[in-house]
């Protein structure tokens, strides 16, 4: 199960994600990542306890979309399990993790 809570303020969007981001739940995250008019995206992954390649694909797509329009994306409160996946795949080298 996964839940996404969105908080939008002008061109700023904060998504607080909770649960597992896997093949079945990643489409919901992808849907929540509607980035029209957004230039500053914050993904709060504090309550994400698992992320598979389907979740990584969402992050990659969001990063590419924002970069094309000069926007930025940052990941906050990344837990140990998700951090390991990001490190293992080299995603932590090009994503902004705070």
């Amino acid at each position, binding site marked *: 199960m996964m839940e996404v809570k969105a908080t939008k303020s002008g061109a700023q969007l904060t998504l607080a994600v909770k649960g*597992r981001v*896997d*093949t*079945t*739940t990643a489409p919901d995250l992808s849907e929540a990542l509607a980035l029209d008019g957004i230039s500053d995206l914050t993904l709060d992954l504090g309550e994400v*306890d*698992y992320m*598979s*390649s*389907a979740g*990584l*694909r969402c992050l*990659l797509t969001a990063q590419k979309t924002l970069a094309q329009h000069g926007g930025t994306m940052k990941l906050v409160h990344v*837990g*140990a*399990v998700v951090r*390991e*996946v990001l490190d*293992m*795949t080299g995603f932590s080298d090009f994503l902004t993790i705070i």
Partner: protein
Amino acid sequence: MTFAAAKFRKFLPAAMFAMVVEFLMELSSSVVCGNLIGEEGLSVVNLMQPAMGLVAFFALLTGTGTSVLYATEMGRFDRRRASELLTQGLWSALMFGGALALALALAREPACAAFGVSGSVLAGVREFWLWFLPCAALKPVMFFFVSMCYADGDDRICAYAYAVQLVGCCLLSVPLTMAFGFAGCAGGLGLWQLAALAVLVQHLRKKANSLKFVKHFSFGDTLRICRCSAGDASVKLCQAGLFLALNLYVVAHFGEGSLPVLAVVIAIFSMCEIFDGVGTAAQPLASVYIGERNDRLTRRIMVYAAKTAVWASVAMMLVLLAFPQLVVRLEGIREVALAAEARTAVRLASLSLPGLAMVMLLNSYYTFIAKEGLATTVTVLGTAAIPLALIMVAGLSESMAWTWAAIAAGPYLALAATMYLIKAKYGRANWPLFLSRPRERKQRVFDLKLDEQTICAVAAKIGKFLRICQGMNEKRAGLSSLLVEETLMTVKERNRGKKINAELTVDRNDSKELTITIRDDGEIFDITDADAAVNSLRLYLVANIMTALPARRNMTTTGFNRNCFKI
């Protein structure tokens, strides 16, 4: 349906078909000679049964032994050792074939003298015996290839080989016997073995063939192969002994004229071979599970096998009780009084079938788990010692019917005696299969059909199980969960549009080492290859996981993917 059940059901028809054909081939000589030559022909084939049983014993000794050891080594991921055993198995089959032909040639005259028969029956036995020698030389080699092709997952080529033999024995033997008598019937047996061998070696040219011969020779390995299959093969030796004793007993007590009635009893008793097909169907998976020390799945496959053996044998028994004349007519017994005695014999002997089926299955199982002594004990008791002891008691009544009833009771008493012996010797713990109870090992098994929901649910369950039940740290449990999802999703994506069964075992041993084994029946490929082509984010992640896991192994086993990871 679980992966194990699907695989067992896939193997079962081919294994049963092979055993039915084996049985029909053994029966064919008596049917052909009985119908074309008459009751005298039936008596001759009857007297040849001990020699045929001896040849079958040596064939099983090499074929079964090599396939069990080969599958077990593959279960341990030791391909080199498996290939060495395979090579030695072939050497053993060749040696046994040559030695058998020579020994039987030398034993012909002494055996004919011992049978106590005369005239045309004696002449027939001498002729049949001589022309049977090429079959004796070829059968161990043929059976070796059947067993190995089967262990390598090529049940189709085994079916073709058996079909060739069946057509030869049941159809082409007719003109040969009509033209050349006993020489034609016996000589044909060798010819059909050769034809089947020519079919089987085609497996070695197939892309999916994993049987690789290497430079290797070791008498020690021959001994290992024989030791491993001694229990299974002892069925044939026991039958040969029982049939020899029965021939001598019937000639001495009821006269040479009663040998055709004995022929139908021997035919029924030989039907236990058909039920050996159940053990043969279970063997490829059971050996792999045993190699992995996966008690839960070993138990599961043996439960499937036991249920199948009981159902099949009871069905066969009911058919024979209702229609005993099927066997009597098939054997070519026409004389009215003899046919009536034969029908009674069929009914009584058929009662032994469920007991025999369980004896055969236990024999196969104890062979798989390398308890050869127990396998031999249950076989000797069930197929020779107890039936013979009971016959001796029944002999006091001088009644032929009591003799057959005694044979029928033998397997049941043997099962009871074996169970008692095991309990007395090894205790109640893990009785009678020597498998630990599920809770004793920290092992979980998951069966799944490959769809996204199931894969993700299983991956989540595994993560939770490792974290909560096993107290594993979050990072390690998360990596395990990730490995499962990505591996299974990759398998799913490689097999788009196909229904794929998978089976997953999570096993944490006492030293806290975690092993995840994933089996699937999809397209064969090596997911553990960290250098495999990457054309998606998932494959990129899989490649990175593989790099992060140094202890990973892939091995195609009996036609399915098997991936093992240590985390």
